[in-house]
């Protein structure tokens, strides 16, 4: 079979748009602080034009074809290259699109290939039928993922709108964005022109914030306290709303299903992403529960895999699942793994270490910083929370071995339960301080295979005898396999 093609010509302009997007802030800053506006604009657009022309030639020369079970690609304007990727080396093909591309019946196809050093990715923008043809040629045994979703051969998990909203309402990640925006603004205040600064600080939203320092130094009256409080509340509400909307846009229409040896995921409202994760590449599954999600009985499921996915191989396979549905979800989507709620936990004598680490050390750090910054004193009100959290950390840590699976559970603030395939475990380390040695306790550090970086899992203050059992289980399972 032979298929000759290149990306759609619109990819040239989309690439230019990406450059505009990434350089827009620099342009705005230059225009704000330099007086030669027309000269800057002239240089900017000339550079943009040159880039577009160069990309046009690169586009002309970038041709791909499928030939004898090999994906072949020619590229290069001055230095001509032909790269061959045998189908057997292709780990996965992912699709993504957005409203605009949907209208033009186009789709991004991202082909993941194992290289000699690290995974490579080839991205093409092609008509949907060509995308389908590429997929069917590379993976002839599996039917095209979209037709499969319609056939519904396995159970399809799809996120409900009410879950999506609840997920947004109970996520506070975007509050940090607002906080960082605020602190960054404070840091660069001196460089921002006075007129803009006045506009910002006179707006109702920020009117109270300027009393922040003053108030902590004891110079705040009731009126200012109210203004300060309402400003902070408004900022929080704003961050919260941004969180709800961005969550809804990102994870809308989230669907996941098992298709033979792959997990197929697709999500996004305006930008649709499709991911295929081969089971054999999956190293472990993590169930994450933030405090709020735990309260409402929900969790997030992630897998770490070698070869595909973004964020160093971490892919969300379901963003907001009812805890009682985990068993069903795992049975349908990844039956190679079994759910487990029995753990060998740290003994009572280990609670002392959890309390010292979780309460005493943070309080000492807060005390030291409060010598330099008065407002740090406010953090002492967190003490009761630190006590409860340390107790929970002790209660929630644990380890469990079962056939070919290792279960580790720990809590920082959120609770994480990771389920490892035995094949993903690389090395074991027992770390002991002199006191732990006397009490026959130790911290377990287990390394697992990942794409680029070393990843160690730590569970603290468990019995040494359990560590010995863990090693025996590992080597016994390996010997049985031989």
């Amino acid at each position, binding site marked *: 079979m032979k298929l000759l093609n290149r990306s759609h010509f619109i990819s040239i302009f989309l690439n230019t748009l990406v450059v505009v997007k990434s350089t827009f802030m620099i342009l705005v800053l230059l225009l704000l602080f330099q007086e030669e506006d027309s000269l800057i604009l002239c240089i900017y657009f000339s550079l943009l034009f040159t880039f577009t022309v160069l990309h046009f030639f690169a586009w002309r020369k970038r041709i791909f074809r499928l030939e004898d079970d090999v994906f072949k690609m020619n590229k290069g304007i001055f230095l001509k290259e032909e790269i061959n990727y045998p189908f057997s080396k292709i780990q996965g093909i992912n699709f993504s699109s957005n409203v605009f591309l949907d209208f033009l019946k186009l789709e991004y196809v991202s082909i993941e290939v194992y290289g000699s050093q690290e995974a490579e990715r080839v991205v093409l923008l092609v008509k949907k039928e060509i995308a389908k043809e590429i997929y069917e040629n590379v993976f002839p045994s599996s039917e095209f993922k979209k037709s499969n979703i319609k056939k519904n051969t396995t159970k399809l998990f799809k996120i409900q709108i009410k879950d999506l909203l609840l997920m947004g309402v109970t996520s506070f990640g975007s509050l940090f964005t607002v906080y960082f925006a605020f602190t960054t603004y404070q840091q660069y205040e001196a460089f921002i022109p006075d007129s803009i600064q006045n506009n910002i600080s006179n707006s109702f939203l920020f009117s109270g914030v300027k009393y922040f320092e003053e108030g902590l130094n004891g110079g705040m009256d009731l009126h200012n306290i109210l203004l300060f409080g309402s400003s902070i509340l408004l900022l929080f509400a704003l961050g919260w709303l941004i969180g709800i909307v961005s969550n809804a846009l990102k994870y809308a229409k989230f669907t996941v299903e098992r298709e033979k040896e792959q997990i197929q995921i697709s999500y996004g409202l305006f930008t649709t992403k499709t991911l295929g994760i081969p089971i054999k590449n999956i190293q472990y599954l993590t169930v994450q529960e933030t405090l709020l999600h735990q309260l409402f009985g929900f969790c997030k499921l992630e897998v770490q895999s070698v070869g595909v996915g973004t964020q160093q191989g971490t892919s969300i396979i379901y963003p907001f699942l009812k805890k009682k549905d985990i068993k069903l979800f795992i049975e349908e989507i990844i039956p190679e793994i079994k759910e487990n709620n029995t753990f060998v936990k740290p003994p009572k004598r280990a609670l002392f270490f959890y309390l010292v680490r979780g309460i005493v050390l943070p309080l000492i750090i807060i005390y030291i910083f409060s010598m*330099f910054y008065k407002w740090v004193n406010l953090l002492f009100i967190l003490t009761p929370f630190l006590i409860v959290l340390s107790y929970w950390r002790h209660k929630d840590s644990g380890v469990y071995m079962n056939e070919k699976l290792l279960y580790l559970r720990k809590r920082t603030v959120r609770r994480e339960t990771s389920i490892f395939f035995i094949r993903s475990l*690389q*090395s074991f*380390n027992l*770390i002991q*301080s002199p006191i732990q040695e006397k009490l026959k306790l*130790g911290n377990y550090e287990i*390394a*697992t295979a*990942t794409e680029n970086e070393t990843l160690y899992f730590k569970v603290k203050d468990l019995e040494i005898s359990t560590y010995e059992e863990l090693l025996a289980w590992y080597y016994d399972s390996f010997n049985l396999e031989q």
Partner: protein
Amino acid sequence: MNPKNRLAEKSLDLYKLKGIYNMLFYIIIILVGSYFVYKFGGSSYYYLLGIPLIVHGIYKMVIFPIKFTETFRYEVVENKINLISGAIIISKINIPLFRVQHIQTSQGPLLKKFGLAQLTIHTAGSVYHIPSLKENIAEELREEIVSLTKEIDE
């Protein structure tokens, strides 16, 4: 059972020398920092930041070399490599031989001065070092691990 092999005897001198270099580096940092605090009139609390550096410097120069060389042990047994490492906090490391991806010996100018070499063991998700072995022992150990890994693979 704990592994029985120890680091080369000269390791003690190597770590003492490293400790002295480390201390000199800290002294330079403290002197430069103090100059800036004096020049630009920072809070006198800033001088306190030098204390942990001095304490750590003394630890690395006096206690660490003795404790570390006393503690470090390694052994290749059956299908695993066992290491014990650390000075105060002790790590007991267990690397399955069938997970070893590659293994290398390396030698910087300091190690060369003492006729020592470092052995590094890589798995798909972790890296461990046997930091100062006699050159010939490092080579032998590397070859031994490579041949054992091959045997297991076959």
